[in-house]
């Protein structure tokens, strides 16, 4: 009831076309200023659903550097703007409180996670990768064939990643001689 007395819906009921107070007379201030997040967004990124391989178009609405809505892209000839429950849950996926946003570290024989800063974690991983490769390097196999590789490092994943990422993964691992590089395509 913070508005001026003249805005009191009872008076609006008496004055206007809505004496029963079921429509125009009872609209609130918030209702009058209603605007959808899609209209108030700062920008829209055109994206693709991250779940299955149908490749449905998504539009990602951003306001104040936060994702405020993800919905189907009407223009897509693949999906015609539609999304399944998973695609529809994309905003929930990317904005979930359960997302891991810091590095977690479990030391050998540890029983709990520990915190670790990202640069340190990267250094540690690089050290371990180089060491594992050195320790397990094979120049020749048991039949004296030249193989120049390591069987000490393996990798699994890629089907949820970008082509560019898969490209770098395979490129780096191949250069390092790691061959047990696999993904969901064989699972």
């Amino acid at each position: 009831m913070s508005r001026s007395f003249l805005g009191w819906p009872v008076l609006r009921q008496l004055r206007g076309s809505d004496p029963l107070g079921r429509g125009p007379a009872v609209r609130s201030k918030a209702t009058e200023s209603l605007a959808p997040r899609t209209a108030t967004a700062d920008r829209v990124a055109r994206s693709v659903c991250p779940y299955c391989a149908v490749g449905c178009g998504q539009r990602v609405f951003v306001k104040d550097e936060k994702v405020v809505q993800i919905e189907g892209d009407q223009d897509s000839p693949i999906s015609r703007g539609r999304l399944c429950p998973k695609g529809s849950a994309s905003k929930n996926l990317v904005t979930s409180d359960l997302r891991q946003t810091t590095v977690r570290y479990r030391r050998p024989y540890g029983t709990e996670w520990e915190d670790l800063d990202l640069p340190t974690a990267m250094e540690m991983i690089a050290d371990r990768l180089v060491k594992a490769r050195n320790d397990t390097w094979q120049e020749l196999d048991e039949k004296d064939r030249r193989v120049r590789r390591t069987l000490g490092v393996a990798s699994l994943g890629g089907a949820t990643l970008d082509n560019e990422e898969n490209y770098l993964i395979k490129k780096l691992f191949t250069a390092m001689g790691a061959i047990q590089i696999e993904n969901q395509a064989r699972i």
Partner: protein
Amino acid sequence: MSSDRTGQGSIHDRPGPRGRGAERSMVPPAEFTSYYGHNVVKPSPWEHDIPAYLFAGGVAAGSSLLAAGASLTGRPALRRTGRLGALVAFSFSMVALVHDLGRPMRFLHMLRTVKLTSPMSVGTWILSVYGPFAALAALAEVAGLVPAGATQGRLRWAFRLLDRFGGPAGVVAGVTAPSVAAYTAVLLSDTATPSWHSAYRELPFVFCGSAAAASGGLGMIGAPVTQAGPARRFALGGALVELVMERRMERSMGLTAEPLHDGHAGRLMKAAQSLTVLGGVGTLLAGRSRSVAVVSGVALMAGSACTRFGIFEAGQRSAKDPKYTVVPQRERIAREGPTRYPDHPVGGP
């Protein structure tokens, strides 16, 4: 085409043996379909606040009537009982109503509009009129209790004002009181809750009778037998109306009367009946004994409370069981075909 399959009775409301007993012989065989036995309509989210309010509102309304009458006929004790009783009951009502809100802090939003289509809005405005007058009358009553010396201080003008307006205010409260008692029936009936809606013809009478019985009972408790004659007659008449109309109501409700007999609600309704009969009989004898009057008054009040709680509970139960929504509608379709304007269906939603 939609009506012809009900009779085939190929499918049941819910799994399991529950609900297919011989006790249903009084109603048509309830062969009907539902979605996993889920309710179709939702029960109100109201808790005991609301039946308590229904009871207290009735007590307040009846008490204001008795107070007004007592005031006009010079029965000070009865007037005092009525006015104070009305204020206490009304105050309790308001607390219950506010407490029951999902957002109690927004209670005043009730005064945002006048919704003639909303019994609750209409009721709010009725209470808004009734309440201040009832309160004024009660304050005047309290002021009258204050020792004369104390009424001469800086608030002297207030006491004088109360003295002047207490009487008229009590009369206004009395005149508006019947709507306080009656609107609550519409409040319940104007829902899709089967056992409430189908009771709409008789429920106002039941509630008004109940209000009279309870407030009369309060008068018998609070006023000496010499002044309580109108209270006894009021109570007796109320009890009679309540009992008779309740019986009639059940007959007109069809299947949806069933929850009034079963379970918790059924026990409450039985208790209400017994207490009201007991209180009524007692009332006949209460002119001679204050203690009989008090016992009878308590019985009548308890009976009224049980009626309110019983009807409330029966409605809640009827909403939770799809049978009471689906079967009456199916019966109506079988009888009259699906509802089509301008024909207006008889019976529930």
